[in-house]
C-alpha cells in the first residue's frame, strides 16, 4: 500500500526522477495533494518532493522576482520586495487558508492545483507573471493564461516540473490590490478580484483587472479594463466597471454561492478595488 518518497536535492535529480516515474506526483507543501490523495485513496507509484531542492527554495530579486517552486507562501508574503512591489499578492496570501497552510503551501502548487478560485492566480495575472517549467528537454515559460487550462488542468507535460514563478518589475506608479470574499474568514473564494491601476492625473492610465472563481479558470477582465483605461477616475467610472464586470464573467452556482451572487459580488469588488486604488490613501502600495 505504500509508495516511494523521493527527496532530490537538485533540479537535475528531480527531473531524472520525474522521467523515471512518469505517474509520480510532485509534492511541495502537499496541502492540496495530500487532501486529494486521501480523498481518492489513490496511491501514486512515487512522491517526488521539491522541498529539499536548493535552487527552488529561495526568492531571487533582480529584474523582477523569481520565486522558487518550493518557497512557502508565508516566505513570499513576508519578503520585502514582494511587499514593496506586489501588494495584491500579499493580500491574497493573507487570506489564503490558515497560518499552518501558509507555512507549507507554495505559489507554484497553488497554480498547479489549477482551481478556478486559486487565490494567488488573479494577482499573478495582473502582474504578468510567468510560470517557469523545466524538463530534460530544457526550459520554457508560460503565462498564467497559457498554464492553467481548466479546472484541475494545466499545461504541464510529462517529464516537466514547475521550477519557479517569475514576476516582472511593476511600473513605478502602479498600485494594486486583491479583494476576496468567502463565507467565513477561513474559506475558499466565493470570488476574488485583483486590480492594478496607474493614474495619469485625474484620469485612469493602464489598468489590469483579474478575477478568480468566476469562470473555469482565473482570468483577466479585458472589457472591464477597457471601461476604466483612459476614463476619468471617479464613482461613475467605477460603477460602469462594476456593471461591465458583472456581465463579463461566467460564474457557476454551487454550494458556496449562486451564479447571480457571484456576478453581483464580483462587480462590487471591482468597484471597491478601483475606488481604493484611486483614492489618495491608496489600497496596496
Amino acid at each position, binding site marked *: 500500500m505504500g509508495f516511494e518518497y523521493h527527496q532530490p536535492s537538485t533540479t537535475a535529480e528531480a527531473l531524472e526522477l520525474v522521467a523515471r516515474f512518469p505517474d509520480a506526483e510532485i509534492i511541495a507543501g502537499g496541502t492540496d495533494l495530500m487532501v486529494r490523495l486521501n480523498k481518492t485513496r489513490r496511491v501514486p507509484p512515487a512522491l517526488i518532493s521539491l522541498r529539499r531542492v536548493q535552487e527552488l527554495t529561495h526568492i531571487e530579486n533582480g529584474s523582477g522576482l523569481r520565486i522558487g517552486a518550493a518557497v512557502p507562501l508565508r516566505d513570499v508574503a513576508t519578503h520585502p520586495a514582494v511587499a514593496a512591489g506586489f501588494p495584491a499578492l500579499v493580500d491574497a496570501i493573507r487570506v489564503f487558508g490558515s497560518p499552518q497552510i501558509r507555512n507549507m503551501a507554495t505559489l507554484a502548487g497553488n497554480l498547479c492545483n489549477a482551481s478556478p478560485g486559486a487565490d494567488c492566480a488573479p494577482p499573478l495575472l495582473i502582474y504578468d507573471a510567468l510560470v517557469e517549467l523545466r524538463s530534460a528537454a530544457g526550459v520554457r515559460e508560460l503565462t498564467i493564461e497559457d498554464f492553467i487550462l481548466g479546472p484541475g488542468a494545466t499545461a504541464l507535460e510529462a517529464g516537466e516540473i514547475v521550477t519557479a514563478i517569475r514576476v516582472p518589475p511593476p511600473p513605478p506608479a502602479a498600485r494594486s490590490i486583491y479583494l476576496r*470574499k468567502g463565507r*467565513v*474568514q477561513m474559506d475558499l473564494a466565493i470570488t476574488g478580484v485583483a486590480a492594478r491601476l496607474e493614474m495619469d492625473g485625474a484620469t485612469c492610465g493602464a489598468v489590469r483587472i483579474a478575477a478568480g472563481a468566476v469562470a473555469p479558470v482565473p482570468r483577466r477582465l479585458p472589457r472591464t479594463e477597457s471601461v476604466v483605461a483612459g476614463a476619468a477616475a471617479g464613482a461613475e467610472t467605477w460603477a460602469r466597471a462594476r456593471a461591465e464586470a458583472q456581465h463579463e464573467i461566467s460564474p457557476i452556482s454551487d*454550494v458556496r*454561492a449562486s451564479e*447571480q*451572487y457571484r456576478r453581483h*459580488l464580483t462587480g462590487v469588488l471591482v468597484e471597491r478595488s478601483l475606488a481604493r486604488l484611486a483614492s489618495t490613501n491608496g489600497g496596496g502600495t
Partner: protein
Amino acid sequence: MTDLLHIGRDVPRPDGADKVGGKALYIHDITRPGMLYGAIKFSEHAHARIVRIDTSRAQRLPGVRAVITGDDVPEVRFGFMRDNLALKKGKVRQFRDEIAAVAAIDPDIAKEAVDLIDVEYEPLPGLFTTADALADGAALIHETDPTGRPVTSNLVPAACSHRSGDLEAGKRASRFVAEGHYTVPRIQQASLGTAGCIAEFDLNGNLTVTAKTQIPFLAQRDFTNALRALGIKDKNVRVVVPAVGGAFGSGLDTHAYEYISILLAWHTGKPVKILYDRYEEFAYLSPRQSAELFIRQGCDENGKLTFREIEVTQDNGAYVSWGATYPNVMLVAATSLHRVPNVYFNATIVYTNNTYCQAMRGYGNPEVTWGIETNLEELAEKAGIDALEMRLLNCNQPGDVTPMGLNLQSCGLRECLEGTAEALDWDRTRSVSRRPGRGVGMAALINVGGGGKIYRSDGSGIILKLDDFGNVNVSYGGVEMGQGLHSALSLMVAEAVGVLPERVIINQTDTATAPWDVGTHASRGAFMAGNAARIAGARLRERIFALAEQVYPGEVERNLAALGEGEGLDEFDFRSVTRDGFDLRNGWLLCKDAGDEPWLRVELGRFLRAAHFAKEGGTGTMFTEEAFYEPPTDLPDWSAGYGNMSAAYTFGVQGVEVEVDEDTGEVTILRMVAVTDGGRVLSRQAAEGQLYGGIVQGVGYALYEEVHSSEGRILNPGFTDYKIPTAADIAFPIELQWVETNDPEGPFGAKGLGEAGIVPTAPAIANAIYDAVGVRIRDLPITPEKVVQALAAKVGE
C-alpha cells in the same frame, strides 16, 4: 445557603489538563488485543431495490476476516420506532443506507474491501421534500410498520399538538396580527471527535461496547435487544464511554455502525472497531432536522399577546430517531415563552428519502424560538411598540403555570431583558440611525432546566464511595462530553459531602459500575447528578456523624497526645458530642459548636481508617452511599401537549449589535451580550464555556451552516464547504451576565445550561439586521446573498 464553600467558584476543569495534554483516551486512541477494523458499504442511491450484492471479491482480499450483508446475519432492528435495520435488506431508503460490512486486520484493507463489494440496484423515484412525500399517490418509503402492518402514508406516527384557551376568541381580541413562514435547514453537530465504537465479546458471550454515546444505559438496553435478535439470551451487555470530543445530541440514539460492529465481533470472535472519519461523519451520521414553521401571533392595542398559532413540518428523512420528538420540546417555547393565552401548536413529521435526522443541542427549541422571536418583532412593529417593551409587557413571572402546565418556580426573564437592554444601551441604539447599516436586536429564551421528561424515567443514580484517604469516588451514568459536567459535579459532590473538590474523583462512565441514568441531554446532566449527589452526600454525612459519636473522642485524644495541651479543653466536652453536633468541611470532621482549634479537628481520611480498621471488637465500616433522583415532573400527554415536563426552567436573553454591508450583504457582528437565568452558577468556567460555546454554535446556525443536498445526496460533506465559525470569525466581544435565581428544585439552586446558549442567537441576529437595514430574513442561514436579495426586493417595493 450563604455558607457554600465551592459552588460558584472559578476553578479549572478537572478533565482539562489530560485533554489538552493528549492523555485523555478518546475512541480514536483505544485498541484491543487482536482487534479488527470494520468498514461499511453504504448505498449509492437514495431510494432503490437491492437486486444483488456480490461480496466475493471483497471476501478474497487478503487481510479480510468477515464480509456480511443483511442476508448473512439475523435481522437486527433498531431505532426510536424500530423502523431501521443494522444492515438493510431488499431496499435502500437514503443515500447512506448500510448494505454490507467488512472486518479486516487494518482500516485500509477494510475500506479497500468495501470498494470491492458490488451492488446491483433497481432505482426507485425518490421523495426529497415534505410536500412531495405528502402528495396524493406518493410512493411509500416504508410500505409497512415494523410489525409488518401496511401503512398508508409517509407521515411519521409521532403526533404532537396542543390547544389551550380559545384560539378564535384570541384572534377576535387581537388588534394586530403578524404571520409568516420561517425555515431552518439541516445542520451538523460538527463534533470535534468523530463517531466510533469497539464491540467485543468475552468467551462467556458477554458483550462490552466502548461507545461514543450520551445514553450508556439506553444503549445497553438497545444492544441487549440486538443480542436477543442474534439468539443470545441472558448475557450481560456493558457499555463503557471513552473520553468524548463533543456530541451535541449525536449520541442520543444508537446507530447502525454500533450494531454492525457488534455483528462483526460476533461473526469473527474478535473485538471490532468502527471509526468514522470526517467525511463519514458528515455523510453517514444524522444531522439536525430541517423544519418549516408557520407562525401567527396577535396582540391587543396595548401589545398584550392574545394568541399564538404554530404549524411545524419536519423533514424526518428515511428513519425515525429520538430527534423526531423535537416537537415535544418545541412545545415548551411554543406555549410558554412569554405569557400568551390561547395557543395552538401542531407538528407534522414526514418521512422522505433524505438523510435521516437526529437530535442536536436545543432539540427543537432553537427552531421554534427562531420563528417566535422573529415573528414577535414583526408583531411589535405592526403594533408600533418597542420590541423590548412588548417582551417586558408579556414577561413570564416566577410562580406562573403556563398553558402547557409548566410550573415556573424560578424565573429571571425580566432581569435578563433589562440586563440585555442596558448592556446594549437599547434606548439609545435601537431604531436609531447612528451609522448606516448598524442595528441592535435581541431574542429571549425559555428552555428546560431540570431535565425534560420524554421517557418513562428522567432519573439519575449516583454512587459516592469514600476510600481510606478521604477521597470520594463518584460513579455516575451521565457523560462528560466536553460540556463541563465533571467541573460542576466535582464542586457539588465536594459541597454535598464536605470535602475539597480536588478530592472528588469521577470514574469513567461505565454501565457496570454506575447506577442507571437516562442519558446526558436536555441540559440535565449537572441538574440530575447534583440532586442525586446532594441526597447521597447527606446520607454519607449522616452515617459519618453517627459513627463519630464513638470514633471522634479517641481521635481527639490522639490529637491531644500529639499536640500537648488543647486550648479551651476545659470548656468543651469532646467526649459527649452527639451526631447533630458534628460538621464535615473541606475534609475535616469538626464540632459545630466548638472553635476551630487544631486539637478539635479530625482529618476525614484518619476518621475513615479508624472506622475501617476498627479495633477492639469493632466490625469495620466502609462508607458508600447511592441515591437515585427522579425529578418531580410529568411525562406529558403529547396528543394534548400538556404536562410539567421539567423540574425547572432556564431563561435568557441575547442581544447583538451588527453592521450590515448593504453592497455585499455581509453581516458583521460587533458585539454580543447574553444574560442568563440558569439559577445559581455552579462552576463559573463551565457555565461560561456552555454559553460561549452555545453562542458560537448559534452564530454558525444563524449565518453559515447548512447541509446542502441534491436528491438526497449530501453536497458538502466536510469543513471545506460546511462552514462553522472559527476563532477568526468570532472577532467580537461576548459579554456574559448571570441572573442567579435560586431555584427551589435545583441542586444548590442551579438550573441546566447546556442548550440555552444556542437557542436565541439566530433570532437576535435577524432582529438586529432588521434594525440595521430594514430587511427581514425568515430562512436560515442568513447568507449575504439572502440579505442582498432582500435589500433589492425592498428597493423594488
